[in-house]
């Protein structure tokens, strides 16, 4: 066992064994290191002012991702390369093209959001040589600017992608090999790490097996994957957590495999990883993921965390339930597999036993010729929690009748839940306007939604019904599928 984590911060190797489990990267940077270029605007993952890049070794090599330093815990950084805005400009003070573009297009006004935008754009610049407008918008989703009106920032992104001078001046491209080597050497000491400060422990297990053993001994420990939920417990609700087990580095939990019938997604797969893989497989699901949080949240947050968290408005359960997914839970002693919908017992209560963790979710591929769609409705189009999220999975039989149908919604009940009455009203009937119109009212038997500030109960009920109609129209020969339907027009 070792007692310190090691990572690289900009150009410097850091070893730390003296932090609490909820110390954030942002506080570390700003308060301890006086790297104040990284800003704090909200401390809850919403504004992106705190954006930094974290580089980690993956199967595809060293990969840098934008993250929100305000909800990223120090303990989750072992074996990574943290890059802040201070690292970008050349040694002679010359601006990086990303920075220069923001100056030239007037992408900075008060400047407080600017370092965050610089880092988001830099993340895009590193990973995407020829971003489309949609790529740019995706990369900027998690950054708020109250001054500029965004347009100059989007322009800067377009401009900089057309202007890629030699890579030598870029600090990460220049030092790529050395950084890789350092990270490999950190990873080669595959020990479980326990850092203790004032009696509070951060545990970084060496492997999934070690994780399951530790969890058996510490069943009350808080598991932290991407921290996009847990981070808020700390910064918003001021909760103290002890001990914390960090699992976001466990690549064993991060694989996506697929065969003819099933796509298996490891619990630790981030939204961003899933997006890359699922867009081709189940395009509607890929597009949904693009509307979860901003890029930073998608880089951090995991599929397993979204399920395990058990929120009634999490976006991942409804589509996976509609697809008939199964969840595998694991302990140090073994595994069990349940239908995903059975995992959600009641508000705030899931079927997870002591010492168990979510290992993976197996998603049956939509059958050939079937129709699958998921819709997210929220007040704000991007970076907003769903008012409701509905998923439909339909297979018609040879006569055009409803052969199989699964419908699941989030935001309509205390848990993500199937619309079994609606399914029943549709099953075996002709897939027609009449059938659908008649089935709409069955939603009232399935769900008694609540009123909150995201939407009223009446709105939710009506919108759910309208989603069924919309799904019908799309499947029954409406010319194009409605993409992110509020965004449809170019």
């Amino acid at each position: 066992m070792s007692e310190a984590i090691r990572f690289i911060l900009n150009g410097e190797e850091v070893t730390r064994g003296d932090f609490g489990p909820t110390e954030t990267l942002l506080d570390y940077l700003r308060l301890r290191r006086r790297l104040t270029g990284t800003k704090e605007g909200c401390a809850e993952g919403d504004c992106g002012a705190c954006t930094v890049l974290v580089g980690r070794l993956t199967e595809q090599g060293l990969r840098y991702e934008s993250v929100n330093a305000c909800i990223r815990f120090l303990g989750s950084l072992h074996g990574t390369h943290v890059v802040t805005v201070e690292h970008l400009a050349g040694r002679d003070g010359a601006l990086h093209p990303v920075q220069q573009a923001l100056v030239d297009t007037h992408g900075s006004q008060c400047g407080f959001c600017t370092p965050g935008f610089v880092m988001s754009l830099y993340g895009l610049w590193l990973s995407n040589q020829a971003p489309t407008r949609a790529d740019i918008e995706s990369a900027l989703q998690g950054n708020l600017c109250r001054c500029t009106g965004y347009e100059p920032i989007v322009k800067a992104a377009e401009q900089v992608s057309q202007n890629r001078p030699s890579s030598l001046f870029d600090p990460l491209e220049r030092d790529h090999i050395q950084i890789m080597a350092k990270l490999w050497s950190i990873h080669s000491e595959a020990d479980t790490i326990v850092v203790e400060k004032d009696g509070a422990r951060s545990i970084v297990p060496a492997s999934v097996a070690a994780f399951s053993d530790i969890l058996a001994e510490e069943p009350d420990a808080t598991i932290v994957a991407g921290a996009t939920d847990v981070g808020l417990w700390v910064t918003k609700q001021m909760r103290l957590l002890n001990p914390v087990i960090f699992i976001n580095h466990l690549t064993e939990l991060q694989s996506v495999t697929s065969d003819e019938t099933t796509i298996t997604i490891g619990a630790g797969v981030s939204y961003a990883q899933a997006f890359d893989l699922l867009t081709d497989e189940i395009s509607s699901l890929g597009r949904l993921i693009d509307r979860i949080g901003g890029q930073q949240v998608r880089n951090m947050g995991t599929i397993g965390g979204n399920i395990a968290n058990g929120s009634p408005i999490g976006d991942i359960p409804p589509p996976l339930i509609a697809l008939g997914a199964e969840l595998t839970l694991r302990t140090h002693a073994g595994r069990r597999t349940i239908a995903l919908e059975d995992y959600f017992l009641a508000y705030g209560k899931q079927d997870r036993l002591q010492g168990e963790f979510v290992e993976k979710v197996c998603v049956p591929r939509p059958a050939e010729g079937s129709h699958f769609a998921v819709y997210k409705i929220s007040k704000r189009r991007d970076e907003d929690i769903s008012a409701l999220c509905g998923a439909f999975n339909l297979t018609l039989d040879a006569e055009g009748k409803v052969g199989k149908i699964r419908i699941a919604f989030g935001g309509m009940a205390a848990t993500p839940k199937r619309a079994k009455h609606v399914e029943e009203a549709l099953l075996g009937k002709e897939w027609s306007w009449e059938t659908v119109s008649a089935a709409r009212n069955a939603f009232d038997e399935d769900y008694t939604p609540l009123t909150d500030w995201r939407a009223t109960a009446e709105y939710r009920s009506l919108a759910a019904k309208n989603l069924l109609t919309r799904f019908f129209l799309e499947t029954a020969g409406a010319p194009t599928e409605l993409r992110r339907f509020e965004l449809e027009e170019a």
Partner: protein
Amino acid sequence: MTIMETRKHGDAADGMVGGRFSRLDGKLKTTGGATYALEQPVKNLVHAVLVQSTIAAGRVVAVDAGKAKAAPGVLSVFTPEDDLGLLVASDWFGNRPDNQPFHPLPREVSFNGQAIAAVVAETLEQATEAAKLVKVSYEETQPVTGLDDPNAGEGRLVDMLSVGWGDAEAAYAAADIRIEAEYRTPREYHVPIEPHGLTVKWEGDFLTVWEPSQWTHGMARTYAEWFNIPADNVRIVSPFIGGGFGSKAMGYTYSAVAAAAARKLGRPVKLAVTRPQTFTAYGGRAATRQTIRIGATKDGVLQAIVHRGASETSVLADFPEQTGAATPLLYAVPNLSTQHRLVPVNTVTPGALRAPGKNPSAFGLESAIEELSYAIGMDPLELRLRNYADHDYQSGKPWSTRQLREALTVGAEVFGWSKRSHEPRSMRDGRQLVGWGIGCGTFPVLKAASEALIRILGDGSVEVVSGAIDMGQGTYTILAQTAAEVLGVPAEQVDVKLGDSSLPGATVAGGSMLAGAITGAVHKAATAARDELIGLALNDSNSPFRDTGANTLVIADGRISVPRGEGPSLTLAELMSAIGRDRIETQRNTLPEGANGPEDHKRSWTTMANIEGPTAGDLSMHSWCAHFVEVKVDEDFGTVRVSRVVSAFDCGRIYNPKLAESQWRGGIIMGIGQALLEEGLIDERFGRVINNNMGDYLVPTNADIPHIQVISVGIPDHDASVLGGKGVGEVGIVGVAPAIANAVFHATGKRVRDLPITLEKLI
């Protein structure tokens, strides 16, 4: 004095006034090198954390701070028990009660989220932990939580805000066409991306405050008065401000708490207001309601406007969000009556948020005008042009410049308005309903005096120095351009120092008045420096120009030479060296000559008492704009997407189009947020702001913003300011929300009269 000819603004990217010059502070901001208030490297710092009330009305009976005091690292807990020894400071206009004690941590609770205690500890973490241990017991009374509270009442009429001419009631009653409707706007918040907070340090009786400030001199006065020390003992330092929008122009109670704690403890204190606390640490835009009645002839000639509005304020102080501010200005109307009431409720005192008054006022009036256009079946553009005001009906004075007609016609042309079909629900794009709407806006020209210092240094570089601030609007940049133009040097050669109350005085960066005021002062000081330099060049015994016989010289591109002639041509550095000077310094202000003493300075730099309104002279001076908006509405789900905006502005001369366009766009997107997203939700039992964070108080993201085309139709207005500008910052938001509401009506046939236009209002 040399008179410079103004150049028309254009597309040149050079550093002269009117050029699209990139912002001077861009490099610092993109590298993280711009240091904001909470990042000042002050040694020996301790951290203060606020404890806010959890009831909306009542009294603090007791504060049990025992556990907090015993917590690790805690130095002190301040509660209503502690007399911090402060005095009430003057209001914005310099009025001040004598020797009245000020208790920033009061015993009487008048709103939920009011600061009632503060914990100071060695580290932020310790202070935060200890703050959770402070136990407050209250005696609660029944709060009034908002305009709709049954106990709120009708409010108190504010006589000063009643405007009228003709006989509006009678003319309305007699009109052929009459419409009447009530419009409402919710509490809205500034949400600058930089949360508020400060770092304070005492050295003896001298106080330094690093705090984001839209007005360093005004805030310095406030601190001096709180602590009863000479104004010169206070220094406010604010070189960068992470967005203000009206919220950073004064010291708030937490500022006083931090400074008092620092004095008591003998250590510098940092107090960072958390994002949730920002929703009650200072006020946003007050909720408003207004009823508008318009009478018109059948062919759309306005006969009467009767306007009755109200806004909420706190029980502590009056802050009217004037619902009638734009009503008398936009149209020609022979009979008008507006009144505004103030309704005290248990909230933090509301404050100025981008275009205070004009903004909700325009929402009402511009919605009503389009309602009228449907009532008589006339195109809303035509209706607006038909009732174009050729002069200011309120003051009876002529406009200085008013290019609103041009804004409307040019905007319409670019937008393609003529292709609109007037009938609601008549335009579609696939499954979506399409709507087009217009909203006009206005903001007054406010004039104030300011002061600036110009230094020409031995190396030929130039320094502009003033206590004015730059919160992103571009003061650094336009001052460099102003000095560069007058002094004939490239703008890159100009260094600008701002944001420090120990520098020459300047008025507040608010009401769009700073640019006009401070460019005037810089222009004057730079002209004096230029004249002095030329004088020296002509007369100094060591100057190579002495014997040229020239009676003046020109400076251009950083060189000084004889006009049109053969003869020496020197760089400024060469000249400075020849005449043996290492600096030329001129400090000038724009106060009139007879009123330029220390008292006048104090009044002008630290209060708003000397600010001149739009009709102070013989003319009526305002900025104007017209927004053309397209929305697409998915009726099945009530989702609205603003898909296109064209906005034309008359803001007079534009000093730097790159900066001004960004101000306008920023205003427009705030208007989009106001129309579709932004709304402070208040828990009706406890008067608490429920959505007090950035995840739930939704501001627009990039995806909410379409392409926004902004057009300048202004002409230089030298009555409004020395350089001819009228002010760009505030007006951009005015008229956006009604344009969107009008477009939504055109798309759906549903008139939403209460903002924001959320999903459920359209389904």
